């Protein structure tokens, strides 16, 4: 029993020794670990990391690194070339944003209109710290009365109403953004079946130059086209093909139709092929453009090899409607057999 204090002393000595050893070991290991990590020479994949910073122009919120679309993959090829050429990240990104319209940086800069994005979280964090520190120092005094004081309600209610208004206003803006533009809002451009040609003409005349009008023009032109009235269809397809607001799909449709009319109406093989190529320059995957080009090559230019290659190309294209496959296959047989086209 008499050696109790001695043993305690011994224990605290050994405890202290253990602490010293632990601290030393921890320090040595931490320094080694940091050194190992800092001297890591394996480079991150620059092509991927640049690709992740650029939004794919034809996709919905995907970066070009993640999108499987043809355009995104072309852009990734450009990035890879430039990385191999030793250009800096910023230079590559500037060039891409300059040369592909619709490409947007997904990594907003801490400047201008996106400065808020970076500042707000920092401010929120600081505010949070201030609030917590203040809260700890200021205990609430309990008031058992359930009746709130009326004069406090007024400013709070005003604030709440103001906030609610902001939410609703902001939201209705968002809704508008998704809806059709106001100029042609009265007519649903998606469903034109019930609209007469006269109405369409009037709407187009009233809204000439408005981006939303291209869809209407295409629908009207389609009717003339279907009725074999190329003369009336022509100006509308031409307008859409030249319209700066037309979407890629609309432009391709217009160019393809113009090409077909050039061949079918005027037997202008060269013009037709040029127009198809123009359409394919916008969307190299367009099945219609390739199909019609193949038809003109077959029937007009007599270039059977080229026509067959194109047709086979289409046959395995996932965009080709399933029920059209049989027809394409039959026509390939016909081209191979050297049959003249109808």
């Amino acid at each position, binding site marked *: 029993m008499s050696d109790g204090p001695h043993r305690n002393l011994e224990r605290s000595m050994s405890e202290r020794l253990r*602490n010293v050893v*632990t601290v030393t070991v*921890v320090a040595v*290991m*931490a320094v*080694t*670990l940091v050194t*190992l*990590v800092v*001297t890591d020479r*394996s480079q*991150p*994949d620059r092509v991927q990391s640049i690709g*992740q910073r650029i*939004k794919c122009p034809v996709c*919905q*919120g*995907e970066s070009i690194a*993640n999108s*499987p679309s043809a355009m995104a*993959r072309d852009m*990734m090829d450009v990035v890879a070339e430039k990385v191999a050429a030793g250009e800096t990240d910023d230079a590559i990104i500037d060039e891409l944003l300059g040369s592909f319209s619709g490409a947007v*940086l*997904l*990594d*907003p800069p801490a400047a201008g209109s*996106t400065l808020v*994005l970076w500042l*707000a*979280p920092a401010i*929120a964090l600081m505010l*949070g710290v201030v609030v917590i520190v203040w809260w*700890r*120092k200021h*205990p609430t005094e*309990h*008031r058992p*009365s*359930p009746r*709130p004081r009326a004069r*406090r309600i007024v400013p*709070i*209610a005003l604030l*709440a109403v103001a*906030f*609610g208004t902001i*939410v*609703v206003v902001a*939201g*209705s*803006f*968002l*809704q508008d*953004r*998704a809806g059709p533009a106001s100029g042609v809002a009265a007519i649903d451009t998606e469903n034109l079946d019930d609209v007469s040609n006269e109405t369409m003409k009037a709407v187009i005349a009233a809204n000439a130059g408005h981006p939303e009008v291209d869809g209407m023009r295409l629908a009207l032109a389609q009717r003339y086209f279907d009725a074999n009235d190329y003369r009336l269809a022509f100006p509308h397809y031409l307008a859409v093909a030249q319209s700066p607001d037309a979407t890629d799909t609309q432009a391709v449709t217009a160019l393809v139709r113009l090409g077909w009319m050039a061949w079918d109406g005027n037997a202008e093989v060269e013009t037709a092929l040029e127009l198809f190529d123009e359409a394919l320059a916008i969307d190299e995957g367009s099945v219609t453009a390739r199909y019609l080009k193949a038809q003109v090559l077959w029937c007009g230019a007599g270039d059977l090899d080229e026509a067959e290659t194109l047709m086979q*190309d289409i046959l*395995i*294209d*996932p965009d080709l409607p*399933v029920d059209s496959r049989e027809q394409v296959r039959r026509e390939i047989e016909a081209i191979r057999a050297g049959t003249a086209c109808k």
Partner: protein
Amino acid sequence: MLAFLGSAGMLVAVFGAGLLVWRGVAAARGDGAGDLIGAARVLIAGAVVAMGAMVIALLVDDFSLVYTANHHAAATPFPFNVATAWAALEGSIVLWGLVLAGYTWFVAARYRRSPDRLGAASLAVMGVVAIFFFGLMATVANPFEVCVEAAEIGCVESSWWPFAAADIPSDGPGPNPLLQNHLMMAIHPPILYLGYVGMTVPFAYAIGALALGVAGPEWLRRSHRSTVVAWSFLTLGILLGGWWAYEVLSWGGYWAWDPVENASLMPWLVATAFLHSGIVQQRRNMLQAWNLILVISTFSLTILGTFLTRSGTINSVHSFTQSAIGPALLGFLALTLVGSFLLFATRAEVVATSGRAKTFVSREGAFLINNLLLTIYAFVVLIGTTYPLILEAFTGTQVGVGEPFFNRLAVPLSFLLLLVMGFGPITPWGEAPPGLLWRRTRNPVVVALAVGLAAAALVTRNGWVVLSITLGVFVIGSIVGLLFEQAGKRVAKTDQRLGQAIRAVLTGDGAFWAGQLSHVGVVLVAIGIAFAANLGTHLEVDLEPGGSVEFEGYTIVYESPFQQSHPSKTTIGSRLSVLRGDRLVTIAEPAVNIFNDTAVPTPEVLHGPGGDFYITLLDIPSPESATLTLDTSPMIWVLWLGGLTTVAGGFLAMRARRHERRPAPEPRAIDV
């Protein structure tokens, strides 16, 4: 007939919800007793009939319903025909209503066992929410409209009147092909909704407590179980969404900070903060006002998420056609925010708790830091998701906010959270003695650094991976250390063996240890993400038949293209031999499924203990070639395992919490 049945169910549900509000308010104003279970039964009966009518219509191909005509096709196979019931806007609201009715019924059953004013008020709040959702169904998102003018495929003109003379189309276009590609589509939405909608329960109790001016942790205690259930399902829903994206949709990734993903992450983050700060209120009688704010925010974020994804404001696989549901949801969101915070502001003095953290070096201090980090995290996601929309709406300026932005802020926040997660559970309440904290920290720190060093020496020197492993081992080490410390104490006091003692400790505070299991899961998720995000490799290649490519030790030989026709789709794919050295590992068949005109790729994923090898058929540029992308995702299974572990912790906590109810002790230094 089915239109009538469904409409009737819908209206019965609205009636039940109205009855619930009326009787609930009366009971809450009186002595608290009332027949609310009856009203809840009417509500759930109506919801079940509505959902049943919808499912039957899909099963029997009843194309007289506009919903069936426009979202279903006779060729759609089981179970996708049933799942179509929630594959489009109107149907998804029916599912939402059904789940809400289920939770309401559950709350009403508990109320019947012990009726009181708080329970009655909460049920009235749930009734209001139910009126809104079933009201949506009856007005702007009516799933039981009858087709009065059929197109060749689908329907162009509809009528809400169930007996209108129907013009029945012969077939419909079928559900969204992306959603038709995998069974997960049938499972993912109900699970996510069990999470989203479950957050209504704590919200209802919070509003009930505020309206009655009832202070104290009663509302929190009563809604705790529902919160844990909802949180667990929300976690599972997010996990399944990520797994689906990775395994089926062939994005090659599991998370892309897509607005729709963000919409589910925001309520998850705030609900997670709430689960933690709720413990502080129950144990230390503080933070009640903060808890109310968190609950209101969680509920509001679920509505905001629904608005963002369902109104067409954001285009994605989850958004449906433009409809009047956007303004309705937005109005409801504004009403919720204004009403709740107005109520909060006028009653805050009553419900505010007087407890304060003595020091930040304490369990409650760690919880405060955890809450700060989680809410800032949610705020980052919120601002990153909505700012581009708001900016474009007001100024027309287009800015992109994507992965790089989120990663720059979320990664440091996540590592800070991991650090706090390591210290929190081993820090005692009240005021932590520095000596005790040191004794509990030193071993985990040594082990974590040793494992980190081993990883750096043997596996990779990538900083993010090493940091996540080191921090992760620290978190797990401190949890295991705490378990052994407490079990050791038991062994010293009683005659139990170590195994028995460990079991006794685990069951003695089941909820705490279930939470720690979730922590382990989160650690695994972090490590899995660090590996996949930093050590994955990627290659895009064009191959012709007979051609081959070397990638990460594999040789891939393109054998031949193939094509298969099914009733609802055509599959075009590439047959590839995957070799390791000379040994054939497998024949891989990445493919593209074509539904009508839409192509949906299906990747081929080879799973292995070291990670996945992922092959996608990107394009078929000519009949004789295939464009493939090859990816490796090292250790990706750790991510899935971690997610499941987190969910398991949630479900265990839900079972455990019932057994231990501790009174809130007065602030003093307590050793866990």
